[in-house]
């Protein structure tokens, strides 16, 4: 671009911003193409076997909890933060709700108990997230360390409360039969719930003041502060949102599997961060979208199912995702440096 403050730049569409270029600039497009290529590949490699309703439903159900966590993580990563604690917070929220359920009717608990369990899980998540956000907002401890500490502490507390064993009767049959296995017009409730959460927070990020402030403070915290945005308070809100969604993840997990799975969430954080980054959200903050995260969640999910269907060891999924992840961040870096130079 030639140096032209105020020089009248030619009006109207110029070739530099034609629509193919513009499309190419949308980061979600690339990840979407990868996803589409995967789906195409497996559909051709295993005709009639891969793209079945059963597979799709299974993929969606498996992805539902990660999607809910990924939505929260998108906000956190956009603020140039990270939350490693989500798996432990999910377990802690599940244990808190599960213990309440055991004390109030167990598997046969009534609807009142179910409602209380849901509220407990959400509140535990929100409280834990807000606490971590408060520590991050002081600026004295980086998010990586705050949430690494949170990862250990939350899991430890959950293990102390249960003696390390998943308690029996943590989920009521009422919860499992509805949210867990129920369907709305043939679509599992878990998927409907995840889709609703994704839609709402996708719109919040893209179209509201809250979303703009999240992007702004990730892009340039000093500028956000000078513009009158209460950066500390906003960080607390973002981490609390992540916590609430981890609590919701706990409810979904209990509904789906009927147990707290204390030992089963150690790598949730890595899976979710992978999905967010694959979706084009920048680890340096300031840029990202919920739509990208949706695509990022489905790439590993499609890979796993696809590899099973075509009879390849599903462990190749880990190899493939690892490579794609590093490539995605590499491309993000290239794009950033190209932009700085312009």
């Amino acid at each position, binding site marked *: 671009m030639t140096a032209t403050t*105020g020089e009248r730049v030619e009006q109207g569409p110029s070739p530099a*911003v034609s629509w193919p270029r513009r499309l190419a600039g949308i980061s979600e497009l690339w990840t979407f193409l990868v996803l589409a290529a995967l789906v195409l590949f497996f559909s051709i490699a295993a005709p009639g076997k891969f793209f079945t309703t059963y597979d799709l439903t299974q993929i969606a159900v498996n992805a539902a909890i990660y999607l809910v966590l990924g939505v929260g993580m998108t906000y956190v990563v956009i603020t140039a933060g990270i939350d490693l604690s989500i798996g432990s917070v999910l377990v802690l929220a599940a244990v808190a709700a599960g213990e309440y359920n055991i004390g109030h009717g167990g598997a046969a608990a009534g609807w009142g108990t179910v409602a209380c369990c849901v509220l407990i899980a959400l509140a535990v998540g929100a409280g834990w997230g807000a606490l971590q956000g408060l520590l991050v907002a002081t600026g004295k401890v980086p998010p990586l360390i705050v949430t690494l500490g949170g990862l250990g502490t939350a899991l430890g507390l959950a293990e102390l409360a249960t003696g390390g064993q998943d308690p029996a009767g943590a989920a009521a049959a009422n919860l499992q039969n509805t949210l867990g296995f129920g369907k709305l017009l043939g679509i599992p409730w878990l998927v409907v719930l995840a889709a609703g959460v994704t839609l709402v927070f996708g719109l919040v990020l893209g179209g509201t*003041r809250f979303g703009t402030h999240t992007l702004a403070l990730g892009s340039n915290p000093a500028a956000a502060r000078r513009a009158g945005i209460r950066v500390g308070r906003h960080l607390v809100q973002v981490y609390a949102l992540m916590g609430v969604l981890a609590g919701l993840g706990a409810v979904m997990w209990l509904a789906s599997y009927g147990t707290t799975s204390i030992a089963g969430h150690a790598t949730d954080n890595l899976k979710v961060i992978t999905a967010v980054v694959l979706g084009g959200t920048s680890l340096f903050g300031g840029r990202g979208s919920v739509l990208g995260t949706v695509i990022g969640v489905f790439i590993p999910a499609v890979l796993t199912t696809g590899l099973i269907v075509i009879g390849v060891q599903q462990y190749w999924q880990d190899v493939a995702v690892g490579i794609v992840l590093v490539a995605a961040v590499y491309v993000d870096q290239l794009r950033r440096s190209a932009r700085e130079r312009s």
Partner: protein
Amino acid sequence: MSEPLLEARGVVKQFGQVQALQGADFTAFAGEVVALIGDNGAGKSTLVNVLSGVIAPDAGQLRLGGAPVRFAGPADARRHGVETVYQDLSMAPDLDAAANLYLGRELLRGGLLGRLGVLDRTAMRREAVKAFAELGVTLKEVTAPVATLSGGQRQSVAVARAVAFANRVIFMDEPTAALGVVQRARVLETVRRVAERGICVVLISHNMPEVLSVADRIEVLRLGRRVASFAAAGTTIEDLVGAMTGSLDQDRPAPDTGARNAEDLR
């Protein structure tokens, strides 16, 4: 001249062992461009930060429009019609020009959507285009992230943001430091145009010829105090340099007296 629009009297600010301001005064009138100059470490940035609400002074008084005022922060200063164009421009590079223009004071939709915090992007873009046009700037794309704009265009966005909301004072910290010749002229032209609207523009600059060409008055800081105040007409670069380095002290009674009043000036 009439009553000053913005006035600082005996401002003291200490950072640990360093006395950044030792009873500094500052006077600015509506509709004028006043340059604030001084050598490195003279206390320019500290004084501007105090005047724009970024830091609170240890002692001293600020008066805006004749009344004592105390800013709780930059946002509070902005509510009083005092805007700042920071040297680093203070923008979110990943957001577009319109979002940056309205950063922290976004326009919301009407009704329920507005109460939910839903942005009125159409209105913001429309107003942004208007604000840029007033400065003679046409951005190729209002929807492009600010990071993709040229340095001059970014500067224009920062200036447009201050101009769009300031109704009293605009501080500009080295607004032309990073610019080429053409862009520099353009910004200085804008500075004059803004002052003609009755707004006071405070220009912080190292560039003496530029200061003399665009400012009406020049205030000189040295060692945390105002040491001189010149009308630009008839003042030479030698006068300014003399005041900055201390070989010519016009506005200070004696080197070791404490805080003093701006009244001495008149």
